[in-house]
Structure formats: C-alpha cells, structure tokens
C-alpha cells in the first residue's frame, strides 16, 4: 500500500504512455507526487541526485519501469539499481507492452515486485493501476 505522501517514479519514454499513467492515477484519485524520467540513465541520476538532477528525497515509494527505453533499457537499469547498495531495496513494478517470457524472466531475475503487461484498453489499464497502487 502506497502512502499518499510517498512519491512515484515513472520511467517511460513514450508521451502517450506517460499520459496514460497520469490519467489512470488521476482517474483513481491518487495524488502522490509523480517524478518522470525519460530514460533509465536519467532515472539513476535522479535517484542519486547527480548530473544536475535534484535527488528525489525521500526516495520514491514506487518505481514504475518500462522496459523498452532508449540509451539504457529497463533491464540494464534494473541491474544498475540492484548493484547500488543505496537503491537496491527500491520497490519496482514493470510496466511494459512485452508479453515475452524472455523479458519477464529477465525482469524477475532482478527481483521486481510485479510484472505488468500494458493492456490495450485504457479502462483495463486504469483498473490494473488501481490494483497495483493499493497493494
């Protein structure tokens, strides 16, 4: 269960997908602070407060991670994150359009908390988001 004051870090490059998450959050009346990183590298910088990025402090209560990302893919981000002792305990949920067992296996190898395939319809997505945040 995510506290209302805990922030969420969304790592997503697609604007529509970002809008989808924002819309789903607002539709489900979640007003937690939402940080957005467009690449895995940017997200790392934000989490560590380096390279001109303000550090997210306190650390986000949840990271929503897309896998198909430019520069640093989601799996690479996971590897970096789990290797960083400061950040290794982060709660992470994968949000991806890939239903491939390969991707799923790779994600679970880095102990993500859940793996969530983006549904085609927004309604489904919204309901799924509500479920995830209330867990």
């Amino acid at each position, binding site marked *: 269960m995510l506290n209302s004051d805990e922030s969420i870090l969304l790592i997503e490059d*697609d604007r*529509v*997908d970002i*809008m*989808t998450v924002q*819309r789903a959050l607002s539709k489900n009346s979640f007003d937690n602070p939402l940080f957005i990183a467009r690449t895995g590298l940017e997200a790392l910088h934000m989490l560590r407060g380096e390279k001109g990025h303000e550090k997210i402090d306190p650390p986000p209560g949840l990271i929503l991670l897309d896998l*198909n990302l430019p520069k640093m893919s989601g799996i690479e981000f996971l590897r970096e994150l789990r290797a960083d002792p400061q950040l290794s305990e982060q709660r992470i949920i994968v949000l991806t*359009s*890939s*239903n*491939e*067992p390969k991707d799923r296996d790779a994600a679970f190898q880095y102990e993500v908390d859940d793996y969530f395939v*983006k549904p*085609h*319809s*927004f*309604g489904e*997505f919204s309901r799924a988001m509500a479920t995830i945040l209330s867990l």
Partner: protein
Amino acid sequence: MTAPRNRRNSLRDRIRSGVDTLRLSTLPHRAESVPVGRHGLAPASIWWGYFPVVLVAFVSVLISATIYIQYASWERKQVELAFREASQDRILVIQREIASALGVVQDVASFMDASESVGRREFRRFVGPALKRQAGIKALQWVPVVEGAEHSEFIQSARRSFPPFTITTIDQSENVIESGERSLYYPVLYVQPYQENKSLLGLDLGQNAVLLQLLRDAEREQQLQVSPGMQFEVESTERNGIAVAIPVFSGGVGIDADQQEEIRIRGFAVGLLVVGDIVERALESLLSGGVDLHFTQDVLPEDEGHLYTHLSRLREGVPPDPENTDLGMVHRQQISVGNRQWQVTTHAVADRFKRDSWGSIVILLSAILISGLLTIYVATLVGRGRRVRDEVEERTSQLSTAIQALNREVGERRSAEMELQSLNERLEHHIAFRTAEAERRAQYLEQFAYVASHDLKAPLRAVSNLAEWIEEDLKEKLDEASSEQLALLRDRVRRMHDLIEGLLEYSRVGRTSDAEQDVDIGELIEEIADSLSPPRGFKIKIQGVMPVMRVDRLQIGQVFANLISNGLKHHGGSKGRIRISCEAVEGYYLFSVCDDGRGIAPEYHDKIFLIFQTLEPSDFESSTGIGLALVKKIVEEHGGTIRLESAVGEGACFRFSWPVPGDTEVS
C-alpha cells in the same frame, strides 16, 4: 561371375549417370602390369625344365661308353690272356721236346761213358730206338778225341769195324777230302742214322770253326754245350739246327778211391738237332692254336739268330701279311737250351685271337638302348611334370586373373562407395547448411515478426488510448456521427491489435517451448471449454477416453482452444454441439474436433489454414485469420498433420494427429 559383373556394370552405369566427377580411369588396373600365365615365363626356364633329361641322357651315354670300354678292355685282356696261355703252353711243350732231344744226346754220352769199348753195332743198337722215339734229331755221333800221334793207330782200329774209314774234312768247294795232318782230330767215329749221314762218318769236326769251339767249350765246361744255329742239309734242303756236344772223360773218381786216374777227355757225344722238326713234333700233340712261333738265338742282329718259324696250322698255307700286325699281340719268352738262351716270339693269328666284337657291340647297343629308354622315360616324366606344372600355372593364372578381376571389382565398388559416401556427406552437409539457413531465416522471420508486432503494438495502443480520451473528454460536445467514427476508429485499432497479437503467437510457436509435462487431455479440454464460455445453446462434449500424455501443455491447449472457438464462432446457428474424440492409430493419437454447423465448402479446405485468411467479411468481429494457421503450425511442428472434413450444411470435422510420446502409455 556373371552376376557380380552385371551388378558392377549397373553400379558403374549408376555412377556414370549420376556422378560425372567419378573417373573410372583412377581405378587400379593392376592386371596389366602383372604377368599372366606361362606366357610371362622366360624361354630359358623352359629349357631348364629339360635339364634332367639331358643330364640323364648324358650320364647314361657316359655309363654306356664306360661299360663298353671296360668290357672291350676286359675282352682284350681275356684274348691276350688266352693268347699268352696258348703261347706259354706251346713253348712249354716245345721246351719239353727240346729237353727230351737233349736227353737223348745225354743218354748217348752216358752210354759211351759207361764203357770204353763200345763197338759200332752196340752204338747202333743203343741209339736206334732213341732215334725212333725222338724226332728232330738229324744225327747222333760219337766223336773221339784223337791225338796226331795216335792218328794211324786210330784209323786202323776204326777200319776193323768199318774198312773204308778215314778222317776227312771239307774243303772250300764243299768237297769231302782226306784230312791233312793235325795235332788233334775230332773225327766222327759212329753216326746214326747212317744212311742219311754217310758223308759225316770220319769227318773231322775240329776243322769246322763253330764245332771246334763247341767241343772246346764242352771240354772246358765239362758239360752239355749247345752250338749257335747251323745249317744242315736234310733230304736236300737246308734246315736250321743246332749241334749239341757232351764231353765224355776217362779216369776220374772210380769205385776205389786209390785208383785215382788222370782225367782225360775221351770224346764227345754230339747230336745234330733240327729245330723245326722238334718244334713240329712237339706241337703235334696240341690242337691248332692259331699261334705263330719264332725262334731266335739271343744274338744280334736278330736276323742272324733266326732258327725257326712255326706258322700256325690255321693259316692253311697262307703266309702272314707283313703289314698286318695281328692286333699287335706279341708274346716273348726266353727259354734255355743247354747253355744258350733262345728267344721265342709268338704272334697271334688274327682270326683265332680276335675279340668277340659282337659281345661288346651288343653290350654297347643294349646300353644305348637302355639309355634311350631311360631318357625317354625321364623325358616323359619331365613332360608330365611340365604338363602338370603348366596346368597348375594355367589354373593359377586363371585364379589370379579372377582374383584381379575381383580386386578390380572390389576397388571399383569401394571407390564407388567412397564416391557415394562423399556425395552423401556433401548432400548431408548441404542439407545441414540449408537447414541451418532455413532455420536462420525462420528465426529472422520470427524475430522480425516479434519485433515488428511489438513495436506496432505500442503506437496502436497510444492511438486507441488517445481516441478513448478524446471521446471521454468531448463526450458532451461530439455529435453522433463523430462518436460513431471514433468508435469505428477504436474498433479497427482493436482489430489491428488482435492481428498483431495473433502474429506474435504464431511466430512464438516453435520458438518458445514450455517444459513438457504429463497432461490429462480430457481435463485440459474441460478447462478450455470453461474459459471459452460458450454461448447459451452450445455444448462441448468429450466422446470416449482421452489420453494422458507428456506434452507442451500450452501449445496443445492452444490447438484445442482455437479449434473449439473456431467451431463456436463459425457455427452459424443459435445452438449446436462440439464433439471431441480421440483414437490411437499406429503411434499417433488421432484427435477429432467436430461441430454440427453450416460446414465449409471443399474448395476452401486448404485456404482456411493459410494465415490471415478468413471466410468471413472483415467487419465480423474477432476473426483474425490466424487461429487455424496457428493450429496447423503447432501440429506440424510436433510432427503431426491436420485436415478438414466438411461439406456445406453438414458441419465440419478437424482431424489432427499427434505422435504418441515415447514415455506415454495409451489409456
């Protein structure tokens, strides 16, 4: 032989027709370099084969010649021996005869020695029988020694018994004349036989040099002396003879030792012997031997010493040919006649002592005949051996030819096999390469389909979301037409999503494989039937027993799900039944999924299995044309087949086979 040849030919044809890289010229043609049969033998060895024959012939001829020579030599020796024996026999007989003749003279001497007063009559009586008994004695004489002083007294005394007696001599013209005065006379006082020797009576032998020497020798030696050869006239022919003189002494040792008297020569017993007569008489006792005998005195030159020649009676008067040496057989022997040595030379008469040449010729011919037969026999043996050897060689050569043919065939086959093997390998390599290539391409394709589908889905979802949000946000402001168009937009986006999803699944078949597990097919079908939630009026029924088999659960579930949903979707009626059955046939499970719908015309039976092919208008919802293609792909990936049995209005039956996994038992 014919069957393999045919096979080889067919093999070769096959090779020639199928493989043009095979060069038969590379096959070993050893037969051409190997000598075959006896034609390959050097001619010298043929003649060497007859070496034993030549050897046997040579040796046997050698032996024959040796035997012949030995035999001839032995024969000649035999002949020579016979001749020598004959000669010796004759000489022995003649010696005996001579000794006998000399004995007669000795008898006369003894007779005269025994009495000093032997008268003419007494002499004749004594000598007469001896003369008859002994041939060859021309004359036996008593020759007293008369001193010149006693000459007259001696003549007077002699004339008492023979009045005309006088001492005579022979002058140079061979006339008998009265002897002159001499210191010593050696007159012949008695002579027998008288008639033939009248002229000798009274003859003073001392006036003949030869006889004088003889007498003196006899007196000196006081024993028998023999003169050299002399000529006697016997019955008007000159004959060779000898004179023998034996001295007779007076006085000497008498009965009383004290009556020692001076030893004084009284006279001589003299015999004249004709050598020829003695010899002939002696040989009378022997059969004719074919031996010529020459008697000579041991004085040189030989001609002068010639005494007598006896020609064999076999000659029948034909004198010996001086050119003919009569085989060269000569025997020489010394014999003693008194104080003299005679040389007796014998010659063989050719006819008598000829080798029996027939014997040796017969032996020679026999030996040659035996040699010839032996040679022929050996030649036959050798020939037979050669024939056997030739036959063996011929057989061997046939065998070696056969072996070579076999070897060649084996070689051809081996090379053909190797060629085939290399072809196979190339083919396999080719196939492997092609397979790998095909797999790579399929992988590329699947990868492409996957990536494309994936990347297509995201923007599609964005479009769908955006359309929804527009509809939501403008709900109040949109007119009906715009709302419907937005709905159509979302529907088409949805369909495209389904297509992409189907494509993803299709491409995933064979690429991903869950671990196989034991699946109860009956349970699986019931699960699927539940999840599909068939419309009211439709029933899904399992007929018969379903197997439990080790299989990829997801994939076989996909097959059943797609087939069942296909049946439901395209049934065409408001109620219906879908029956599922299974039977085991020869290592396969044969599943059937049958509906009782409107059926499918036969011309579409192939088409429905193609991807993106549907028999429905594209407006019909949720028909992507992937479901059956996916089923076909899954079935075929697992080694089975699928077919459709259907006609319009009679329902449709999909029947697919699935190999029975090795460790599953049909229940």
